[in-house]
Each structure stands twice: as structure tokens, then as C-alpha cells.
């Protein structure tokens, strides 16, 4: 796609005509309608029953996990949570279209993708309780998951930073001759960051096999999309970068799956980025620290509840006779009790020992951090009751 530059390709005009809005009309790929029927003229992707079930179960799992953890936060058992309710299809169905070798670099609302990869309930819990069983060692707030074994990059809070990183990661995959791409998730809010611009442009110029997957859910905390950008969403920007682009109904698992599948094939084949804009809606509050009634109407939320990806997909599965309702009910009950059990276990697990406080800052602990660690250990030994989480170990 980077055959365009400077002047060679440009046609002349002699009339002063400033391009106004409307030059671009980016349509939205929709395969499954809100009632779960395939749109006339649309083709369902090549998904077998097992995959369909896995997608559905993962979406259901994610919803249940979200529900439980929001409640756990209200009970004061964890400090923070961030639900993906209403947006499960975007994360789950896109992850389903990838290979396990593909790297996932997510924002923070893509727990569905992680669940699809096989992250266990225990793993979720260990991260959220910052306990010593989490390979991220309890250093970040809840929901900042990461698992190298699953090719899921540890999440970072500063928005947009993973976008140029994904370009670089994909470039490395290409150099190393890996048969893999990187997918980079982000919100339409994060797409306002300078890092978005830098990352997408660099990926296009440097031919990086990366899928930029924007969840446009209409809000960045309280800020509606209309106060975030004036163009035709995020998709229209892709054109500006010379990046292949597609907009999909983010609440339609089949559309998301189809688009991502094709995007992955293209990225791998051409060593070039593809931008996907998934139109969805954050039915949840931004996070457990947020109350959306301060900035949007119940009415608007209700409208979107009708587009729920779970119901929609369920209807489709039913229409294919791929859904055993009793088994699903059983799955849901089992999931609920598994989550609760894991929660109860994980919250009992201790945090890492005190000495860990200086680990992983550098590859090896340098002299000054050893000095600081030793002084701290001596101090905690002197005041054990003031540092109950770690003094017991000393």
C-alpha cells in the first residue's frame, strides 16, 4: 500500500473545491442481525459447531466473570474492576479468528480474548488479588493481565502506548520469519493519543503485519464519541494512512470473526497492517469507579441492550440447532460456582515476599536497590505489626 507518495499519482483539478464531509462513506459489515438471523445476501463465515460453541461459551464466561467481579468490588474484596459487558463479541470473536501464535496486545477491556486463549479462572483471580501466584507478581491494579505462555502481553494503563509497540512487535515477528501477526486492541478514545498516529503510520510505512482493532464503544469514560472526533469514526483515518480498513458491527460475532480472519490473512500475506473498527457500546460503567448515569441516559443504554451480542449469537446457534440449552444452563452454573470458588481461594493467597519489592526493576538487582531492600527488611522486622502483609514471611 505504500506505493503512494508525494506527487506522482496525483490528478489535477482546476476548480477550487474544498473537500467537505461526505467524501467517505464507510459502511459497516453486518452478518447477523440483532435477532440472530443472517442478513439477506450475507454469508456466515466457515465456523464449525465446536468453534461456535467455544465463542459462545467464552462470551458467556466473560459476562459471568464481569458480573461476579463487579459484585466482588462492591463487597470490598478487590479494589477495582472493569467490565466488558456488551462488548464481548468484539474481543472474543476476533481472538477466535487468530492463531495461538499471534501476539495479543490489548487495552484493558478485552478479557474475552484472554479467556478465549485459555486463561483460567484461577489466573484471572490471582492477578486481581495481586497474590504471589500471579506471574505479574501483583505489581499492577486488577485487570492488568498478562501471560507470556498465551502470547498475551501484560496490559499497561497509559492509553495508546501499545499501538506503536504492536507495530514494532509485528516487525520483529516478520524479521524472525514467524508465521504470526500481532493484534492490537484499543478504544476510540485511546485513538486520539499521538501514539495512535505514530503507530499506525509506522506500521504502514514499515510494512508490519499487525491488526489494529479499535473497539468504538461510543464513550471514553464520560466523553462521547462526538466530543472525541469529528470524522467518520476511526475507520476513515485508516484511509489517510494508506492502511487497509474495515468497519464491522462489533456486536455481531460473525462479522467480527469474518473481518478479523480476512484481516489476518491479508496482514500475513502482504506484511502490512489492517485496521478494523468494531462499532459497539459499553453497556457497563467505565469501571467500578464510574457511574454512567452522570453522563448518559438509561434510554440510550436500553436501546443498545437490544443489540446484545450474546442473545444474538444464541439465537443463531439455536437456529442451527447447535445449542443445547440445558447444557448451557449447566455450563453457566458451573462457571458461577467455579468463579466463586477460585475467588475464595485466591483472596487467601499471600502477596509476594518483601524482597520481591526490588525485583524486575532491572535484570539483576543493582547495588542501590539491594541497599534499599536490606534497609526495608530491617525496618519491617522492627515494626512487624505495621506491615502485616509481608512481615510474617521475614
Amino acid at each position: 500500500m505504500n506505493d503512494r507518495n508525494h506527487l506522482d499519482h496525483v490528478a489535477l483539478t482546476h476548480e477550487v473545491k474544498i473537500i467537505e464531509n461526505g467524501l467517505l462513506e464507510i459502511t459497516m459489515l453486518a452478518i447477523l442481525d440483532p435477532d440472530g438471523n443472517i442478513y439477506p445476501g450475507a454469508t456466515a463465515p466457515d465456523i464449525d459447531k465446536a468453534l461456535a460453541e467455544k465463542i459462545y461459551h467464552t462470551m458467556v464466561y466473560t459476562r459471568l466473570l464481569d458480573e461476579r467481579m463487579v459484585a466482588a468490588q462492591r463487597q470490598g474484596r478487590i479494589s477495582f474492576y472493569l467490565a466488558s459487558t456488551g462488548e464481548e463479541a468484539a474481543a472474543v470473536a476476533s481472538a477466535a479468528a487468530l492463531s495461538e501464535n499471534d501476539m495479543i496486545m490489548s487495552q484493558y477491556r478485552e478479557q474475552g480474548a484472554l479467556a478465549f486463549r485459555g486463561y483460567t479462572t484461577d489466573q484471572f483471580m490471582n492477578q486481581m488479588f495481586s497474590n504471589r501466584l500471579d506471574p505479574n507478581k501483583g505489581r499492577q491494579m486488577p485487570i492488568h493481565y498478562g501471560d507470556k505462555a498465551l502470547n498475551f502481553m501484560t496490559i499497561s494503563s497509559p492509553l495508546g502506548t501499545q499501538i506503536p509497540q504492536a507495530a514494532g512487535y509485528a516487525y520483529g515477528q516478520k524479521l524472525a520469519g514467524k508465521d504470526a501477526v500481532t493484534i492490537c486492541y484499543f478504544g476510540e478514545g485511546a485513538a486520539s493519543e499521538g501514539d495512535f498516529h505514530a503507530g499506525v503510520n509506522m506500521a504502514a510505512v514499515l510494512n508490519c503485519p499487525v491488526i489494529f482493532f479499535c473497539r468504538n464503544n461510543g464513550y471514553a469514560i464520560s466523553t462521547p464519541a462526538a466530543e472525541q472526533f469529528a470524522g467518520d469514526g476511526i475507520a476513515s483515518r485508516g484511509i489517510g494512512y494508506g492502511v487497509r480498513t474495515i468497519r464491522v458491527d462489533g456486536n455481531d460475532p460473525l462479522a467480527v470473526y469474518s473481518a478479523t480472519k480476512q484481516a489476518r490473512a491479508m496482514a500475513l500475506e502482504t506484511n502490512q497492517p489492517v485496521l478494523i473498527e468494531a462499532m459497539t457500546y459499553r453497556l457497563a460503567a467505565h469501571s467500578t469507579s464510574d457511574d454512567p448515569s452522570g453522563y448518559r441516559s438509561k434510554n440510550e443504554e436500553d436501546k443498545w441492550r437490544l443489540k446484545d451480542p450474546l442473545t444474538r449469537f444464541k439465537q443463531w446457534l439455536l437456529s442451527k440447532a447447535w445449542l443445547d440449552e440445558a447444557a448451557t444452563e449447566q455450563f453457566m452454573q458451573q462457571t458461577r460456582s467455579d468463579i466463586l470458588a477460585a475467588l475464595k481461594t485466591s483472596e487467601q493467597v499471600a502477596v509476594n515476599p518483601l524482597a520481591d519489592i526490588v525485583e524486575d526493576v532491572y535484570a539483576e538487582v543493582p547495588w542501590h536497590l539491594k541497599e534499599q531492600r536490606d534497609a526495608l527488611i530491617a525496618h519491617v522486622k522492627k515494626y512487624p505489626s505495621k506491615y502485616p502483609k509481608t512481615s510474617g514471611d521475614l
Partner: protein
Amino acid sequence: MAKLNLLQAINQALITAMTEDEKAVVFGEDVGYFGGVFRATSNLQEKFGKARCFNTPLTEQGIIGFANGLASQGSTPIAEIQFGDYIFPAFDQIVNETAKFRYRSGGQFTCGSLTIRTPYGGGISGGLYHSQSPEAFFSHVPGLKVVVPRDPYQAKGLLLAAIRDDNPVLFMEPKRLYRASVCDVPEEDYTIPLGKAEVVQEGNDITLLAWGAQVETIKKAADMALEDGVSCEIIDLRSILPWDAQTVAESVMKTGRLLINHEAPITSGFGSEIAARIQEQCFLYLEAPIIRVCGLDTPYPLAHEKEYMPDEFKTYEAIKRALNY
């Protein structure tokens, strides 16, 4: 005079500033209709209209770039960065632009009317990206002023002074005090001078110095030391840049000892500048080395937050070390 928390005091200062100065404009992520994620800008859009209080797109470099331009045009921008941890994308606009605007143009153009507000600091289970105390970075930037209040009274008076000051001011709000700190705040307009430290408590044996939320910590440590008969002088620095070396030096010449407490990592934290200057200025008066009780040289942890913090126990122990040197 009403009891206000720190957020309410800031909100009141903003209302005062916007009422008095038609050119005052407040903006940042979520500050508009919603009133900010901490609600510091509540009701401003309602009161002053959308043109003067508005949401921006999610781009800190854009917010400060826009603010620089607006300031140079003659308005009085009051920009919010949602968390101090997210001020770094704007670092270039602040360091290379805000701070150098006046200098490079020989005073023809300035960003002097700009105020940047941002919550900072730990103690709220925020982990490495919702807890940082970045004041030291900005203390190395000639052209900026950096101010940190310790309670609602200070917050209102210092924020009004910052907004009216003819230099760009970074106003750092200790977010763990947002709701926790409550005190009497006069309804009326008042300012507290920038660049002046406050001697919060007089004492003879050692000077304890902090700013923002850590002033509370050194007070607690001073109370513990008092039980041992140690008399601590407590100084709230209030302004990080330019800072009030004179008040600190005078105190140290009296007490002969200095302890500096801050949350940020010790290495190249602002405590290092204070120590470097004071050891030079008070060399012959010092009876013990200047001690820094600070955050560790690690990112800000979550699970080990309590252990990381330069709390009153660590401070108290350091006071004893200084006294027994």
C-alpha cells in the same frame, strides 16, 4: 467559613477564578459535563457554558499544546491532566514549549497565564500508573513553577495564586487527600504566595520537610519523636520551583539537622536538590547528614504499597538516626 474537602476547595477556587476572569477556560479529559473523574470541575460547564469548560479528546500532548496556544493568545487556560502518571505524553509540550515560550521570544509571547492541574501521589492502591509523584522531573525545567498544596485551605489559596501568576504553573494535587482532608476554607477570594514555604510547627532539634500529603506523615513522625523528647520543626515546602531555600536554610541553621520526606523514588527526587543546596548553604551548621526518607528506586508497587511508602515509622526511625549521629 465552611468545612470543605480538598476537591471542594479546588472547585470553589475554579469558580472564583472563572467568575472574576472572563478569559479563564477549563478543559481536559472528562472535565466538562461530567465534572472530571474526581469531580473537581463539577458544575463549571453548567455555570460558565460549554465554551469555557469542556471535554477534550483523549490526548495529553494535545491538551497542553492547545493550552499553550490559548495562553499565548491571551486567554487564561486551566488545563487538567487526569492523572499525574499521564502527564508524560505532554512532557515535550511542557518542557520544550510552555517553559521556553517566553524566553525564546524575548518576552514577546508567553504561556504565563497557563495553569496545569493534575492529581498525583500514592496511598490509594493505584499501583504503578495511578500513584506517581513526578514533581522532580518538572523541578529541572527553568520557566515553570511547581506548586503542591497540603490541605483544602492551601489548595484554594495556592490555586488562585497559580491561576493569576504571570508564569506557567504546574499545580499538583495530592489525590489521596481529595476527600480525606477537610478543613475550614473561607468563602471569599484569597491567595497564598507562590515560592514561600510555611513553617507549620516550630522546633529545635531537627527540621522535617515535606510537601503535599507527606506533610501529614512528617507530623505524625514528629509526634512520635516528641514522646522521646525530640522537638521537630516542620516545614511544608508548598512550592517546588522556585523553592524557598531561605526558609529551609534558616530553620536548619537553628536545628542543625534536616530530614526530607517525599513519595517519589529517592534517586534524583526533589529531595536531592534540597539536600545539595542546604549542605552547601548550611555546611557549618549541620550536626548530622541531611537524611532523605523517600520512595524506593522502583516503579510504584501495588501489593507492597505500604512497604514502599516513606511513612511515619520510617521517618521516625530516621529522626532517631539523625539525632544519634
